[in-house]
């Protein structure tokens, strides 16, 4: 409220240099018209203290404007009490000040309303355009399947169409990247265009604006940890941004699983670290197939620590098909092919 910063110079009563000390309203004749005002009905506009003068120029008071009523102002005095002063009791300067303030407030309200209407209209327009675009995709895809008989060419054309539409849809929501309709476009792109430029952009936008939404798991499902620096960077960002326990667990386990098939020592160390974290903190998180992560992480940890090339194979103690007990380690000293098989 910049207006309230306007300083008023009429600090004193200015009726000459009378030896009579200036009295304040409270002690003066205006006391009769001042009424107590309930604090509860206050409008919260930021206030600064201003010196108010009465219509006779005799009395002044330092107070904040608490509320602007149709025919009065409510003043907040420094002792915390409030006073209701009819406009007709205010000096010309104060009345002008109040009138200007009222005008500004009305203007602002109108502007805000217009803005709101505009943005709502713009939002509706975008939504309608996106919807029409995605519907046109469905129609064009159907046309394609009816006219193109060659399967490979059909797949190519369908993918090209998806890329094109995804690019246009992303463009439509460019100005409102955090809107719900934008999220719909990102997810549509991930589902339909799957890979390529548009899908990469959609994944990045999801991470930028919706990392903390449950739908981020659809991005996680698409990312192949270790496949590219971009994918790894997105996974790191999701880990850093998401506060969702399931998302954290699933991302960590998925990264660990990718690392488990790499053969570097740093990959192995990071993999073991992540699996330890999953076992400790995310054991009860369910993966997309509704299986808890804990047992899977334990199995993978065992595999990473014991079943990689270069590790001594864990022993197997069991019975053969005739019920005779034996151990894998019985065959030490020989080259062994261990064959997990079944006759089905």
């Amino acid at each position, binding site marked *: 409220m910049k207006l309230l910063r306007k300083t008023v110079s009429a600090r004193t009563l200015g009726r000459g240099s009378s030896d009579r000390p200036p009295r304040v309203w409270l002690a003066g004749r205006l006391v009769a018209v001042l009424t107590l005002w309930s604090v509860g009905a206050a409008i919260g506009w930021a206030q600064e203290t201003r010196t108010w003068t009465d219509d006779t120029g005799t009395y002044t008071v330092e107070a904040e404007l608490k509320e602007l009523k149709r025919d009065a102002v409510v003043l907040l005095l420094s002792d915390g009490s409030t006073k209701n002063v009819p406009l007709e009791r205010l000096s010309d300067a104060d009345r002008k000040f109040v009138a200007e303030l009222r005008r500004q407030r009305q203007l602002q309200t109108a502007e805000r309303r217009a803005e709101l209407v505009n943005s709502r209209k713009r939002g509706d327009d975008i939504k309608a355009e996106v919807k029409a675009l995605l519907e046109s995709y469905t129609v064009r895809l159907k046309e394609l399947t009816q006219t193109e008989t060659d399967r490979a060419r059909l797949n190519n054309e369908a993918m090209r169409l998806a890329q094109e539409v995804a690019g246009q849809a992303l463009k439509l929501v460019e100005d409102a990247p955090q809107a719900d309709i934008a999220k719909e476009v990102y997810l549509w792109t991930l589902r339909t265009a799957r890979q390529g430029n548009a899908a990469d952009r959609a994944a990045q936008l999801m991470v930028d604006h919706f990392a903390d939404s449950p739908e981020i798991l659809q991005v996680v499902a698409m990312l192949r940890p270790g496949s590219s620096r971009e994918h790894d960077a997105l996974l790191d960002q999701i880990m850093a941004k998401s506060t969702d326990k399931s998302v954290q667990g699933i991302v960590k386990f998925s990264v660990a699983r990718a690392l488990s098939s790499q053969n570097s020592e740093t990959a192995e160390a990071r993999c073991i670290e992540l699996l330890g974290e999953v076992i400790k903190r995310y054991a009860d998180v369910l993966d997309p197939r509704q299986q808890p992560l804990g047992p899977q992480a334990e199995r993978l940890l065992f595999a990473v620590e014991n079943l990689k090339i270069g590790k001594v194979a864990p022993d197997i103690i069991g*019975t053969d098909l005739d019920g005779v007990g034996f151990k894998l380690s019985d065959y030490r000293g020989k080259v062994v*092919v261990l064959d*997990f098989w079944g006759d089905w």
Partner: protein
Amino acid sequence: MYPHERSLVKQLSDKPFALIGVNSDRELDKIRETVKEKNLNWRSFWNGPQGTSGPISAEWNVTGWPTIYILDKDGVIRFKNARGPAMDRALTTLLAEMGHEVSIEHETEDETP
């Protein structure tokens, strides 16, 4: 599958070599019959009545069949999922490390795997 493995076991019978299976069929009776019928000449652990969810394959994190590990004489895992000619090469290498020069050749058999 079966012919290749059968042939390996036969050819390397006088070498420090063993083919050990982990069988994940649920029904023991049935698999015993198959072993007899198809003349499967290697020893197998049985993964138990839970089949592919049995304890051995679970501990070894096996999610696809067949899964193959090749171990050297010290029990160290040296190859994973080397099959067919790749398995032959792996065995040739590991046996050579032990001073056994072998050349593995398979007769073509009529039986389909």
